[in-house]
């Protein structure tokens, strides 16, 4: 049924339709509305057969999910930003044990300085933990990906993160088609665990593994993700057949067939990128875009096939590998082995910095003339940066950087863009 609801509410409805048996969570902005909504549904009885557990921390929340999943329960949690970092050890454990937990990340920046707004630093910090990571373009896809995520997780016995841009999607009201319980039941069979803690048939899980077997366990985790490269598009196709709309998959090309410049991006920014691509196409510029839905496993081959005929690739990423440049760019570069084309990394949207059509248009035009630096920070306020660098040169005891910049900027509550 079509509904005009908040992204968080759409995700909560999707999770409930997947019939989770244990949900444990600890609130953190901008993810809070999601677990509030599922909590209400458990309380009202709308989501039956599910235990909702308020944990004392994010570390505890995922630890409870690990225990519940090991006991054979379909388990779910959600977090954001710092909360994901606090979970970190359990994030690796869930994947290392091969437990099919689904977790929503309401993507948020990582401090310090403290910032509640959107970028991809949190998910990216956990990119090598062994979870599958799927990024949603809009709230319909956020909803749909959760249904696919439980199926992917349980078929492979591997945890899945569904990454949803904080505020931009979690707090946006837009139209979503909420499927019926019968539709979801037909797509997602009951959880049949590959491993289960059962007193009648006792097993050990999480044993100490030495050098004799650790590499093999890790190789099999990698192998599982390589299998996911097949499974994710298969399930996306099956989903389209059953639900009548395309969602998920490894990646999605937009006007790339004859494109000389291809922009690669993840998550909700792709909509604005597509708008700019259309504008520039009207002016005869051969530009296209690729949205990467599956960041882990990274679709090296599929991306390579799309980029092969282009002249240049612009990787637009909401995260920063400090001291290197791009994180997504690293994967893109891997996919280009043996292909000659110019590559640019653009760091954009950090800590909720607005990404405008105007800025993207300027950026893509500069790229088209090959006038971009290897690494560009979109809309960087050079005046403030230079002021701070000079200040640090003048005084040894220059004090904290972030606070000095805030003083320099003055009140910002009145700015629109």
């Amino acid at each position, binding site marked *: 049924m079509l509904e*005009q609801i908040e992204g968080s509410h759409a995700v909560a409805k999707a999770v409930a339709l997947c019939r989770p048996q244990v949900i444990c969570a600890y609130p953190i902005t901008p993810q809070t509305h999601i677990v509030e909504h599922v909590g209400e549904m458990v309380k009202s009885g709308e989501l039956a057969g599910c235990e909702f557990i308020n944990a004392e921390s994010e570390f505890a929340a995922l630890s409870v999910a690990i225990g519940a999943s090991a006991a054979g329960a379909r388990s779910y949690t959600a977090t954001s930003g710092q909360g994901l970092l606090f979970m970190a050890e359990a994030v690796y454990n869930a994947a290392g044990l091969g437990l099919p937990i689904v977790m929503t990340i309401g993507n948020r920046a990582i401090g310090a300085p403290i910032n509640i707004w959107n970028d991809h630093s949190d998910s990216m910090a956990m990119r090598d933990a062994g979870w599958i990571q799927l990024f949603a373009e809009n709230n319909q896809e956020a909803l749909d990906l959760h249904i696919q995520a439980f199926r992917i997780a349980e078929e492979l016995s591997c945890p899945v993160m569904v990454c949803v841009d904080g505020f931009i999607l979690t*707090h946006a*009201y837009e139209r979503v088609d909420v499927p019926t319980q019968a539709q979801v039941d037909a797509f997602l069979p009951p959880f049949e665990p590959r491993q289960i803690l059962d007193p009648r048939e006792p097993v050990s899980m999480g044993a100490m593994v030495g050098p004799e077997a650790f590499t093999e366990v890790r190789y099999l985790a990698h192998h599982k993700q390589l299998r996911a490269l097949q499974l994710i598009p298969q399930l996306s196709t099956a989903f389209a057949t059953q639900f009548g709309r395309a969602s998920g998959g490894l990646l999605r090309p937009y006007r790339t067939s004859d494109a000389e410049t291809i922009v690669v991006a993840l998550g909700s920014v792709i909509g604005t990128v597509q708008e700019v691509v259309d504008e520039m196409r009207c002016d005869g510029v051969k530009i296209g875009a690729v949205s990467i839905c599956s960041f882990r496993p990274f679709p090296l081959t599929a991306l390579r096939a799309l980029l092969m005929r282009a002249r240049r690739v612009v990787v637009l990423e909401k995260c920063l590998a400090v001291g290197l440049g791009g994180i997504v760019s690293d994967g893109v570069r891997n996919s280009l082995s043996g292909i000659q084309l110019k590559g640019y990394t653009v760091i954009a949207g950090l800590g909720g910095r607005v990404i*405008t059509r105007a800025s993207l248009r300027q950026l893509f035009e500069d790229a088209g003339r090959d006038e971009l630096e290897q690494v560009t920070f979109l809309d960087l306020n050079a005046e403030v940066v230079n002021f701070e660098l000079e200040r640090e040169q003048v005084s040894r005891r220059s004090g904290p950087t972030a606070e000095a910049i805030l003083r320099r900027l003055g009140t*910002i509550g009145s700015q629109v863009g």
Partner: protein
Amino acid sequence: MNHTAGNNDGSMFQIRIHGRGGQGVVSGAEMLSVAAFLEGRYAQAFPSFGAERMGAPVMAFCRIDDMEIRLREPVLVPDALIVQDPTLLDQVDLFNGLHAHGYILINSARGFDALGLKDFARRFRRERLRTVPATEIALRHVRRPLPNTALLGGFAALTGQVGLASVVAAIREKFPHALAEPNVAAAAEAFAAVSRDLEKADA
């Protein structure tokens, strides 16, 4: 920031709501999107990404279109502005990006001239600029100074982008019954006040 992207193409109508934290700015945008959705249109509502304190200047955005909305930037070139708190007039660059055919609805018992906007108003179409005493209306019906629903009624009358019936339905979707009905009354009164005002100007 550079606003060269120009005016909106085609059917898209973009609204920016200015107010202060605690005045229901974000829920106003959300209800507006629901009203448009109920009329079979695509709509998107989202908050601005800034300070979230009671009393701090805040913004929320709403886009209405006949096609799916992909754009995620804030509303930089609005077709309509709703100003929930007239004390922002001197503090915030409220009118940034508003084009000459744009609508402005200000929550005030005073007119544009009395608000010191006489010269400013000449740059716009007079029939698209209105004030409505939304706080007074809200105090009468809702008994709290929350002008958002009254302003949605006024917006429906001023722009015709959504009908009053859809605004009423959106309010009833947002609030429990006891809270919804006073808000419905506030929206209806503001709708009537702005409609009367527009007819008077026509005559």
